[in-house]
């Protein structure tokens, strides 16, 4: 039993250990030129480049462009997705009417709809944001709908028995009961937003992490290429941490009940 407890205490240290081990390994084989360092620069060199780009270059500008794009896109798509998901989860009629459309539109690759969106909204910021919004709409909708549907019917009965109006049922049952699923949707939605933001930037934006990746590639500045990709990964980790904070704050009852 105590051995198991020790093992459990170790778990948080394992990811950093794996990371450090992998980086050391890469450092060794690139420094020894087992992998050509021209295409695979050593991690320390990448980190140094990252530092320089942050302090001297315009990395932070590009980073904030990507983060703003990802957040506006996510809010623009995620909030309607959540509202519609809630309606579809709650009302069988609405679900049966709209579900075929969701099923048909969801698998369409979002980035491939960019040309059509550009025809409608032009080639500027609006179009780029709308693609991101469309991409985060679906994970939020589907998660919220699943979240409302998994609420046990007895909670609706209890609320009705206590005389709750529909609005009160929404506030005291539907919303809190589906929050763990909504937050899972937030995590998925933010990640999709991030990848679509990068893709849009690779394709046509003049600013952002994606643009930076493309420029580094075009000019064969391999170390900068890696440094930008690491930046994107750091955004991914921030998303994870942000959602975990939300979970701890909004649904302690669900997270604690499961661990």
């Amino acid at each position, binding site marked *: 039993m105590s051995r198991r407890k020790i093992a459990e205490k170790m778990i948080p240290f394992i990811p950093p250990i794996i990371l450090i081990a992998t980086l050391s390994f890469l450092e060794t084989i690139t420094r020894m030129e087992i992998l050509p360092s021209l295409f695979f620069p050593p991690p320390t060199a990448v980190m140094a480049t990252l530092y320089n780009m942050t302090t001297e270059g315009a990395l932070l500008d590009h980073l904030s462009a990507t983060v703003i794009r990802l957040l506006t896109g996510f809010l623009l798509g995620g909030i309607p997705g959540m509202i519609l998901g809630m309606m579809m989860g709650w009302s069988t009629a609405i679900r049966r009417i709209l579900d075929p459309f969701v099923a048909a539109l969801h698998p369409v690759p979002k980035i491939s709809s960019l040309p059509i969106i550009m025809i409608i909204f032009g080639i500027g910021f609006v179009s780029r944001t709308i693609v991101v919004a469309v991409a985060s709409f679906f994970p939020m909708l589907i998660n919220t709908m699943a979240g409302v549907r998994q609420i046990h019917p007895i909670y609706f*009965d*209890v609320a009705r028995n206590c005389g709750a109006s529909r609005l009160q049922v929404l506030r005291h049952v539907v919303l809190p009961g589906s929050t763990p699923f909504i937050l899972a949707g937030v995590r998925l939605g933010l990640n999709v937003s991030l990848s679509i933001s990068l893709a849009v930037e690779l394709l046509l934006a003049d600013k952002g992490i994606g643009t930076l990746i493309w420029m580094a590639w075009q000019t064969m500045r391999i170390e900068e290429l890696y440094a930008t990709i690491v930046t994107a990964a750091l955004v991914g980790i921030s998303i994870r941490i942000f959602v975990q904070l939300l979970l701890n704050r909004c649904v302690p009852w*669900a997270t604690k009940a499961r661990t």
Partner: protein
Amino acid sequence: MGFRCKNLGVTYKTQNGELEALEDVSFSVSDHEFVCLVGPSGCGKSTILKLVAGLLDPTTGTIEFDSKPAGDRPRNAMVFQEHGVFPWMNVLDNVAFGLAIRGVPKAERNAIASRFIDRVGLSHFIDSHPHELSVGMRQRVSIARAFVNDPEILLMDEPFGSLDAMTKLVMTEELMGIWSRQRKQVLYVTHDIEEAIMLGDRVLVMTGRPGRIREEIEIPLARPRDLRDRDKSEIVKIKEHVWGILEEEVRAGLRGQHEPS
């Protein structure tokens, strides 16, 4: 305020076709009466409570409440068999829920709720969430919530099913105390025949599915009753009688062929 159930029938629509849960159920509960409902598992006891609570519409039949215009329903509170304690609220908010819905100010509703939490012995757990409670403790939360709502009709679905014998006895005595003071109408479902006899003014014995009322038994014991004294000859006699009926019903149910009585 009593009520009368007239020829209630319920047919559930399920994936495997229709399922007749209740057939022609008629009974009444008069003012201040405590009525117990016993019957084999799946005979429709919970369904009857949901009908009276208005959570389910009968397929046939009607329920009439005294001194209310038709269609109107006096305030009732249900203690659900599966408790239905909200996992996202702590004990206090769960118990105060009905008052919050009615717009009672926070300080006032918390004071009322705390009093009932005290009565069910959970004052140390007032800030706990349901996942930190045992099943029996959650059941007590749901009982406190029902009482806080100060209903005219109390509907209890095996409220003490998950409690140990001693806690159950104490809680039942508490319930009887509250009932004798406030004299609400109670419809009480239980699997425990002895309990039904000790508590009820009347015991309704149901048939297997589709459920009907097979027999109504008046319990002639004087009140207040001593819940600890269960060996009186009257009690034993009624108990044997009810056992006999239920044995027939359960055996018929297990054979899958229920002969109409």
